[in-house]
């Protein structure tokens, strides 16, 4: 009798030690479905660096060497290159030609306050394409 009781007790303990798998798998699948549903593709960003010089600071005088500054205007109705109205494709061509001569030339971007920010970013993208890194952004009214 005592031996039978011991055996039954051991059997009961073995049964209790089993982990119920079915609910755990259910939960795991629910978690998986949640993660898959909430997954969002992360876009890859770029940071376009610019220098923002102060308009109050006096310009540096270099009498021996004329400053190599390219002036590009960003306005609500388009771009200008040295005060001449140009399209984005023309600007691309100009910058490509200029970058072949020197990539360290200063590009001064005059941005009108009523222009869209996207236009400035598109221009900076063209500059990045031709590896022109010396960029200054000045806001104009």
């Amino acid at each position, binding site marked *: 009798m005592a031996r039978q009781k011991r055996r039954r007790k051991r059997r009961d303990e073995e049964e209790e030690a089993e982990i119920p798998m079915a609910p755990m*798998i259910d939960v*795991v*699948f629910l*978690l*998986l479905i949640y*993660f*898959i549903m909430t*997954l969002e*593709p*992360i*876009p*890859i*960003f*770029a*940071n*376009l*660096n*610019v*220098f*923002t*010089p*102060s308009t109050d600071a006096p310009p540096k005088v270099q009498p021996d060497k004329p400053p190599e500054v390219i002036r590009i205007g*960003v306005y609500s109705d388009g771009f200008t290159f040295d005060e001449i109205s140009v399209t984005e494709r023309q600007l691309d061509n100009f910058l490509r030609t200029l970058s072949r001569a020197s990539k360290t030339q200063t590009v001064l971007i005059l*941005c*009108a*306050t*009523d*222009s*869209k*920010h*996207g236009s*400035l*970013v*598109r221009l*900076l*993208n*063209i500059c*990045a*394409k031709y590896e022109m890194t010396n960029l200054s*952004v000045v*806001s104009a009214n």
Partner: protein
Amino acid sequence: MIDVVFQMIIFFICTIDLDKNKFDKKVVLEWARDAAEVKEQNPLTINVNVRADGTIVIGGTRMNVPTFRAILKNVTNRYGSAQVPVVIRGDKNVLHGRVRELMDVCKSAGIWRVSFAAIVTDG
């Protein structure tokens, strides 16, 4: 199969983006397919989101220009202006005048270099 499912869950947990607040979903960035992608961002970077209507959002919180000025002043006083990169995440349709205000705040805090965020690829 359970092993595979567990591995997938571990993968999803590991790749979960905890910095979602940095990027405002209402900001539609302009494309810059030819620019170099950001590989690593300085942890001190301040990401300023500017929505199309001109609303400024930092870390999921709306704020105005004086508050941004105060935050920037606080951070630059602690770490130095040369150490704090500022990334302006301007919507492609926001007027430059609004972005200019932020650039002026950066200048007043001694930050002369700012970055404009753009999308290289959709991910």
